[in-house]
């Protein structure tokens, strides 16, 4: 993964707007959801400079998903957008993945 480039990630998020997407989202020590299928209507990224960044997704006409503390991103070989937040010792705090196909169970 690389440090989040806000402009790059914004462009990648936009690719998921207006269609169905599968989502993996976690606050690592507390909760995860895997393979929520939603219709994304809007996607946002916010945060200054080197971050950390906040990402929010509007879905299904009435839903919100918002995450903070995101630091790193990657477009993997399957075109999925992987966002994660790591602490200064490499431990994951949060993750948000968007894909057009289900993630492995």
């Amino acid at each position, binding site marked *: *993964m690389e440090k989040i480039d806000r402009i790059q990630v914004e462009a990648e998020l936009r690719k998921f707007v207006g269609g169905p997407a599968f989502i*993996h989202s*976690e606050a*690592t*020590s507390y909760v*995860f959801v895997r393979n929520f299928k939603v219709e994304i209507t809007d996607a946002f990224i916010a945060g200054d400079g080197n971050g950390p960044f906040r990402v929010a997704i509007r879905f299904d006409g009435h839903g919100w998903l918002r995450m903070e503390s995101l630091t*790193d991103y*990657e477009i*993997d070989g399957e075109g*999925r957008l*992987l966002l*994660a937040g*790591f602490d200064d*010792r*490499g*431990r*994951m705090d949060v*993750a948000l*993945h968007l894909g057009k196909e289900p*993630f*492995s*169970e």
Partner: protein
Amino acid sequence: MNNDNQSAARKLLAVFAHPDDETFICGGTLAKYAAEGVDITLVSATRGEMGRRMGNPPYLNRETIAAAREQELREACDCLGVRELIFLDIRDKTVEFIDEESLTARIEILIHEIDPDIVLTFHEQLGGHPDHCAIGKATKAAFSRAGRREGLYYISFGGMMEVPERYGYTREDIVKVNVSGHLEAKLAAFRAHRCQSEIDEWVWLPDAEAMTRFGEYEYLIKSEEAAPIVNASDLFQAEDSHAVLVAGVNL
């Protein structure tokens, strides 16, 4: 070793939850028995794919970690001398939510197939993590259902069983395995689990210094159903005295 022929028949099955349980908790014990020729099979319920540690600095993400941890576990098994590795393909952090009946049945089949002398698993209350307690509970049930009474032990963390009374046990319930001759293998296995151990600076100190962090002993709790412990330093009770006798004759 002069008792290789006898030892070759001895088998140990370890049923744990995550890659690294076998190394971080009882790596010395596995390395010791592997070195004595015991045929060891390790079952890992999950691939540890929901772990928080991703390397330091991180080199994994949630989608790549499963394959990486599988590979790291294979390397750790090589370090310890574990011959066979089986995954149950359960998602990390969900073991306690898997159908208990089918999980127990899967483990019972493995016990029948492998026919181990010794089974190691987690204590269903003292496991320390929901996945650990769940796999321990299922393994205990499977062991019983397989018609077995002798040879089931629960692994324990560090020196907690130096004072077993604190946990409702007595010294008579504990096997204390001297692993001091197998700390190099344990350290190598720690390092094989790189994404998990990289954050612990001591693991990467020079070998002699790093190994000072390991205890000389690992402690295992005898299951309630088994006969009293005869030899408090060896998991193989009756089998071991037999092996020693035969080895003596061979000399």
